[in-house]
């Protein structure tokens, strides 16, 4: 176990390094967005001031020096947006509560719903329930969050007044927090439920034909016991690993559309704004956050994996 953790940590560091290098080269070098010094100095600055900033920020230094400085700034909390002058880390920190609330709530909803739908579709494979669920998941997969979000806001929010129109309320007010998040959770979940329930359905249909399921029946277990203990437990591995990665992506600001539609000022919303301003420093910081989330949740998923399937520990 200790060796597993150490090896895993080393892999995490190596991955973060590689990702930071690639994003730095992509965002700061390949996509310079003009002279950063001029951006910082503003429109009315004279060449002397621009030069001063170039030297102060080290934009004339070799690229590897600039890389180290940028990374040190991002991880040290001293990175500033060239366009908006805000402290990038503080801005991300301000967005995290909304984003994590969105991610965790939606994650639980989409995981449980797809386990329910996927199992139902599998045990009713080929029959009416299965067909209805197939159509529903197709709709879910092809439903863009901005469209579904707009419909929810208009009908459930504006017309019926069932949900608030937009915004995020801090968890210190739990009732309001929940009330404001219900619609975003549903909107974000719909896409994932479509995909996950399809994957689970096909995994279950594969597992049903396994010899150990036949053994379980031959033991005299009830259909429910066979389904829960032998079929479902063994079918959950693929979607659990997928879940970890998708959740990480949402935490890293991946739910750009959902956050924007509902004006949840989270990391995704910040990502959306930085893209539209070509705010490369902020973007790079968000990418690093996503990478960190993916790597950490990936490791957690792997541990959970080993718990679900004891054979994995040996590998």
């Amino acid at each position, binding site marked *: 176990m200790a060796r597993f953790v150490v090896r895993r940590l080393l892999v995490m560091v190596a991955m973060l390094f590689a990702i930071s290098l690639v994003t730095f080269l992509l965002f700061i070098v390949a996509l310079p967005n003009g002279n950063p010094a001029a951006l910082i100095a503003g429109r009315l600055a004279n060449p002397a001031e621009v030069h001063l900033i170039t030297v102060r920020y080290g934009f004339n230094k070799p690229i590897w020096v600039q890389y180290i400085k940028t990374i040190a700034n991002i991880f040290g909390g001293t990175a500033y947006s060239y366009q908006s002058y805000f402290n990038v880390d503080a801005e991300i920190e301000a967005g995290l509560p909304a984003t994590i609330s969105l991610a965790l709530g939606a994650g639980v909803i989409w995981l449980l719903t797809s386990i329910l739908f996927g199992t139902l579709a599998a045990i009713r494979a080929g029959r009416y329930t299965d067909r209805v669920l197939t159509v529903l998941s197709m709709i879910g997969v092809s439903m863009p969050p901005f469209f579904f979000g707009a419909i929810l806001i208009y009908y459930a929010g504006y017309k019926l007044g069932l949900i608030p129109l937009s915004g995020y309320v801090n968890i210190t007010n739990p009732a309001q927090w929940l009330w404001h998040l219900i619609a975003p959770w549903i909107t974000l979940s719909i896409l994932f439920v479509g995909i996950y329930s399809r994957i689970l359905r096909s995994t279950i249909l594969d597992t049903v034909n396994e010899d*150990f399921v*036949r*053994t379980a*029946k*031959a033991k*005299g*277990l009830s259909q429910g*016991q066979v389904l829960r203990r032998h079929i479902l437990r*063994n079918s959950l591995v693929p979607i659990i690993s997928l879940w970890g990665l998708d959740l990480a992506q949402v935490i890293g600001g991946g739910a750009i559309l959902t956050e924007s539609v509902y004006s949840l000022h989270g990391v995704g919303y910040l990502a959306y704004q930085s893209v539209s301003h070509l705010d490369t420093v902020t973007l790079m910081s968000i990418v690093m956050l996503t990478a960190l989330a993916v790597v950490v949740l990936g490791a957690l998923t792997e541990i959970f994996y080993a718990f679900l399937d*004891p054979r994995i520990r040996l590998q």
Partner: protein
Amino acid sequence: MSAAAPLLQVDDLRVSFATEDGLVRAVDGVSFSVAAGEVVAIVGESGSGKSVTAMTLMGLTRGHNARIEGRARLGDTELLSASEHELQRIRGASIAMIFQDPMSSLNPVYRIGDQIVEQIRAHERGISKSAAMERAVELMERVGIPRSSERLRSYPHEFSGGMRQRVMIAMALSCSPKLLIADEPTTALDVTIQAQILEELRTLREQTGAGIILVTHDLAVVADIADRVIVMYSGRVVEEGTIDELFYDPLHPYTWGLLGSITRIDRDRSQRLPAISGLPPSLLNTPKGCHFRPRCPHAFGRCTDDPQLIARVPDNAEHLDRCWLELDRKRALRVVGDQIGLVSPETVVS
């Protein structure tokens, strides 16, 4: 042989499956009985319906595309028409089953002990987990798994194939079944392990008096352990008799072919092992009359009529076969190159 009231009586069992290509008649009118303490082997090649027969008795072939007809009585219970709930109580308790591939027959994500305990608790409501665990240890010791109380906590992948099959046997034993169905229990194992597992089955029969149905294509296994043999071909029984009758006085050409194609220590090793030429018929479209006719070198005009499975040896009502040939002709034709076979080893082109 079988006592007045056999443990299991199967009458005219028919199993067919609706597939996209048509109706597959996997089992086509099979009847046999098993007495307590008796080992009945069902022999045949892949697709002969032997496994389907075995699994149908457990209710494992039921499904919306399966049609099951006939009768199968175990004591007072009619197995084929039993409700799913009744079957649940029978499976693993009155009838236990051991499967072919011990590598995949145990669930990889649960500890061995838990899988044995699961079966015990499925049939003995109210038994505590620790009591069931103790029983599991005893069972594992009984089937020769060393250090049982430790190995209880192992996962299937930490066991060898032979050890896993012992676990399967331990599980099958857990509720003292009256009938044990072993579906190719030794096929996936090394020969030395095979012998050990067969020994285990023999001990089990002696200790519990359970009847055993052994499904196999391995005649060496049959010779080792069976009392009676049922030879199946293309969904039907083609010959049935005691082990001595089958090995020393086989009456159906298919049985000759099976006997002729096994490796024997007294056979000239320079010759190729004779095989039965051709393939078994598709179960979608079986030949008219005798199903073995297209592959039988001794087929003649009458074979297009269905031969019945009846006793054809005078004064022996228990040795049945399904072949039109005269008894004397059979006894003459089956001897090829000093041995029983379908074709002479010399005629096999190498």
